[in-house]
C-alpha cells in the first residue's frame, strides 16, 4: 500500500512451482530417476552421490589428472541430467552413466593430449619398512610409465582396457557401454595389451 500501513503476512506454504521433498537415499536408481525426471533435483543429487566415485575414476583413468577428471565428471553428470528423460531403463543406470562418462572422455581426449599428474611424494605416506627408498622410487617410476603407455593407446583400446582392468566389467558390459560387439571388445583388449607390452618393453 502507498501509505505504508500495509501489514505484511508471510505465507507458510512454498510457491507452487517449488518441489520440496525429502529424498530417501535408500531408494533404488529407477525410483531416483523417475523422481529426477519429475523435477526433484534432490533425487538427482542422490544419484550423483551414489555414482560420482565410479564416474570420476573412469575419467581419471582416461586423463590421468584430477583437474581434468573433475571437469569431465561434472560434464558427464550435466549430460546425464539433460538426457535423463530419455533414459528408458533398458540398462542399469550405472551402465548408462558409464557410457556417458566414456563418451565425454573419448570426445575430450581426441581434442586434448592427456597430462598425467606428477608423482606426489610429499603428501602421501609411504610405508618403506619393507622396501628401500630406491625400490619405491623405481616402482613409482614404472607406474608413471604404465600410465603414460595407457594414455598413448588408441581411444577405443584405452576405454576397453580401463573398463576391463579397473572396473572389472565383463566383455558384454563393455560392449554395451561402447556400443560395440563382444568380438570388437576382445580384439581391442588384445591389441591394447599388445601395445602396452610393446611400449613398456622398450622402456628402460
Amino acid at each position, binding site marked *: 500500500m502507498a501509505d505504508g500501513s500495509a501489514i505484511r503476512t508471510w505465507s507458510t506454504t512454498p510457491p507452487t512451482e517449488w518441489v520440496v521433498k525429502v529424498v530417501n537415499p535408500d531408494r533404488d536408481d529407477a525410483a531416483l530417476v523417475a523422481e529426477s525426471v519429475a523435477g526433484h533435483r534432490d533425487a538427482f543429487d542422490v544419484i*550423483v552421490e551414489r555414482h*560420482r566415485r565410479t564416474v*570420476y575414476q573412469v575419467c581419471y583413468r582416461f586423463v590421468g589428472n*584430477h583437474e581434468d577428471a*573433475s571437469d569431465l565428471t561434472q560434464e558427464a*553428470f550435466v549430460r546425464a541430467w539433460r538426457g535423463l528423460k530419455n533414459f528408458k531403463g533398458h540398462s542399469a543406470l550405472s551402465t548408462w552413466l558409464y557410457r556417458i562418462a566414456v563418451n565425454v572422455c573419448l570426445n575430450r581426449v581426441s581434442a586434448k593430449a592427456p597430462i598425467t599428474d606428477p608423482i606426489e611424494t610429499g603428501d602421501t605416506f609411504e610405508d618403506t619398512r619393507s622396501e628401500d627408498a630406491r625400490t619405491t622410487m623405481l616402482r613409482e617410476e614404472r607406474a608413471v610409465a*604404465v600410465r603414460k603407455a595407457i594414455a598413448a593407446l588408441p581411444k577405443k583400446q584405452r576405454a576397453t582396457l580401463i573398463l576391463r582392468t579397473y572396473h572389472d566389467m565383463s566383455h558384454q558390459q563393455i560392449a554395451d557401454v561402447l556400443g560395440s560387439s563382444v568380438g570388437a571388445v576382445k580384439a581391442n583388449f*588384445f591389441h591394447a*595389451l599388445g601395445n602396452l607390452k610393446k611400449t613398456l618393453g622398450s622402456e628402460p
Partner: protein
Amino acid sequence: MNHLTPDELLDAVEGTLDPDRLGHLASCELCAREVASLASVLSEARQVEMPEPSPLFWDHLSARIRTAVRAESQPGGGWERWLRWPVLLPIGALALIVFALTTALPRQGMPAEQAIAGSASADVALSDDGWMLVADLVGEIDWETAGAAGVVVRPGTADQAALELNAQEQKELSRLIKAELERVKS
C-alpha cells in the same frame, strides 16, 4: 601346429581358455610365452592405483555438479533464452529498419541531387503501414539487447551508408524521415 588365436590368447590370459586348447598351450612354448607376457603386462597395469582424493574433494565435486545442474535447470538457461518476444522483437525491428534504410538511401556513384531526388521517390515505395510499423518499432528497440544478440554494424549496412553521406545528404535524409514520421502520426 595350430597356434592359439588372439581370442584364445586373451582367454588364456583371463583363465577362460577352452579346455580342448589347454593341451596346445601346455605343449607350445611360443603360445605359452605370449600368454605369459600378456598376463605380465595386464598384472602390471592392474597394480597402478589411482591416487585417492581427499575426503573434502568429494563434497566439492558434488557441489560443483549441483551448481552446474541447477544452472542447466534454470528456464531459458540455454540458447532458448533468445526465443523470447522481448528479444526477438527489437532484433526484428532492427532488421526491418536496416532493410528500409538500405532500400531508401541513395546508391553509391549517383550524383547527390539525383540521389536525393531518387530517395524521395524511393520512400514512396514504403507503404504507410510500413512506415507506421517502423515508427512503432523504433521506440521499442533495446539497443543493448540487440548488441548482446550479436547484431552489429557491418560494412555496407545502412548505418555505414548514413555515416558516409555528406552533410547535405544527411540533412535531406533527416528531413525525409522526420516528415514521414510526422505525416504518419498525423
